Structures are given as C-alpha cells and as structure tokens.
C-alpha cells in the first residue's frame, strides 16, 4: 500500500490528506482521553506503534508469484488499542517508512487512508461482526486481519485507478486489484495467523487490557 511521490494527482493527494487529517484529529482526542483515564495506555501505544512499524514494512517473499510484499498490522492494533489511535500510529509508521524508501510524503494521506483507516476500521468491523455472531476470539481476530489486509490493497488499487485512470476507472481498479491479490492473499493468510495468535495471547495473558478498553473483545 506504499504509493510513492509523483504518482497520484495533486487533487487526489489533497483529498486523501483531508480525510486522513479528520481521522487523525479524532485519534489525538482518543489518545488524550484514554491516557488521562489510564496512564498504562501509553506503553501499549508504543508497543503497537513499533509492531505496526515493523509488520508493515516486513517484506515476505512469495515464490509462487515471484514477488514479495508485507502484511499491515493495523487490524490487530485496532482490536487492542482502538481504531482512531491506530490511525495515528499507522501515520507515524508510514512517515518512518519513507526513510526506508517506502511510500512518499505527498502520498502520505493516501497511504494513511488505505492502511490506517480502511485496514483499521474494516478489520475492527469484521472482528465485531464475528464476535456478534458468536465466533471465538481467535477466529474473529484472524478474519479481522485477513479482511483488513485484503481491503487495504483493494483500496490502494482504488486510489491508483481513480487518480490515474478516471476515464476507465472501474476496469483499471480491477486490473490493479488483480495485480495485488496473488501476492497479498498468502500474506493475508499470514495476517490471519498472527492477528489471531497475538490477540488470543493477550486476551489470555492480560485480559484487563481489554476490560480497560471498553469491552471490545466481549462486545
């Protein structure tokens, strides 16, 4: 989902920035509120921030397609620390990724939208939906990771198509999505496994973390 500088049009870069900034504003509010309620929320943020930073730039080779790519980590973070705070963390991670030649400063809004907003909220939504129908925590978390990961890349394809090919938008969106899917699908399965394992582990080892965070896991 790391779109570089010089690819998207100025107009679309601006639109994605505005959308991202709205979510970032809510994120700052969420962090301030939760930190004032519970100071132990801060180390949890640092923990998830470092996890997203590493996971979202950790290239995993997929020999079947002869390429490599990376998971996103934001669905896991959204379940553990909340969605708006995750948007902030993913923005910080994406800024640091620029120095590792991934993404760009002008496309930061677009990359935040795909990984930080869509990955986060679709992932969390999937988790809550699965919990509501009675699925176990690990299964719900796993599907959150899987769906969040796939949707992030479909959104990236959307961003590329709508900016570069407005005349044949739908066709190009499908083409770019199909370009991502063969590599991303095995990685989405990896995202399923580690999201399920980490969330389940934290629920078992430190259930009070979730109790403090408004009962998302039990919800």
């Amino acid at each position, binding site marked *: 989902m790391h779109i570089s500088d010089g*690819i998207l049009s100025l107009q679309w870069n601006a639109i994605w920035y505005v959308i991202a900034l709205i979510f970032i504003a809510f994120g700052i509010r969420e962090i301030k509120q939760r930190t004032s309620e519970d100071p132990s929320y801060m*180390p949890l943020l640092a923990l998830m921030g470092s996890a997203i930073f590493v996971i979202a730039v950790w290239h995993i080779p997929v020999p079947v397609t002869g390429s490599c790519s990376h998971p996103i980590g934001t669905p896991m973070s959204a379940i553990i620390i909340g969605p708006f705070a995750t948007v902030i963390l993913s923005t910080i991670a994406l800024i640091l990724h620029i*120095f*590792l030649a*991934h993404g*760009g400063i002008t496309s930061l809004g677009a990359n935040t939208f795909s990984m930080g907003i869509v990955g986060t909220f679709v992932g969390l939504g999937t988790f809550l939906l699965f919990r509501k129908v009675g699925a176990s925590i690990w299964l719900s978390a796993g599907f959150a990771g899987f769906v969040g990961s796939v949707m992030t890349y479909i959104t990236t394809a959307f961003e*590329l198509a709508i900016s570069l090919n407005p005349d044949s938008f739908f066709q190009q969106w499908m083409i770019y999505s199909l370009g991502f899917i063969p590599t991303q699908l095995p990685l989405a399965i990896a995202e399923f496994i580690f999201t399920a394992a980490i969330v389940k582990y934290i629920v078992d080892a430190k259930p009070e973390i979730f109790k403090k965070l408004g009962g998302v896991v039990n919800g």
Partner: protein
Amino acid sequence: MDNFIKNCIILLVVCTALMCVLSYIGYISGAEMGGTDAAVEETAAETRGLEAEGIIPSVEHFGDMGEYVGFTLAGIVGGFIFGYFWIDIKGDNNA
C-alpha cells in the same frame, strides 16, 4: 525463561527459516522477487507516463547495502521498543 519467551524464540527461528526457504525457492526459480507495491504502482504510472520520485532522501541512496542496513536497524529498534514496553505491560517475571 517463561513460556512466552520460549514461544517468541521458536517463532523467531521458524519465521527466519521460512523466509530463507521462500527466498531461496524464489532465487533458484529465477524470479525477480520484487515488491508488489512497486510493481503495481509502476504499471499504473506507465498508463500516464509518470515515474515514482523520492522527495525525502531514503536508504535507497546508499544502494543495496543501505537497504539491508536500514531494514536491519529498523527491525532491531522496533523489536527493542516492543520488548521494552511489553515488560511494562505484562510485568517483569524476574522482578
């Protein structure tokens, strides 16, 4: 050494071994193993004759070695931060 640390070490070894095996399979099959982000982005940019540019200097300026060192440092720093705050949250078993 508690179960958590044991599991982490096992996971680290398994992941590293898996990455090596997958990379080697890609290498012997002659695949380029390039990043998908860049590949799709290039395909998209070509439709409009655009080219990706880096406004902010990155590790790419130091060549392949810069990337290796940059990613290694990023992983180490990220891992240390994660580990440090994990103790803060979970509690130090040795304390």
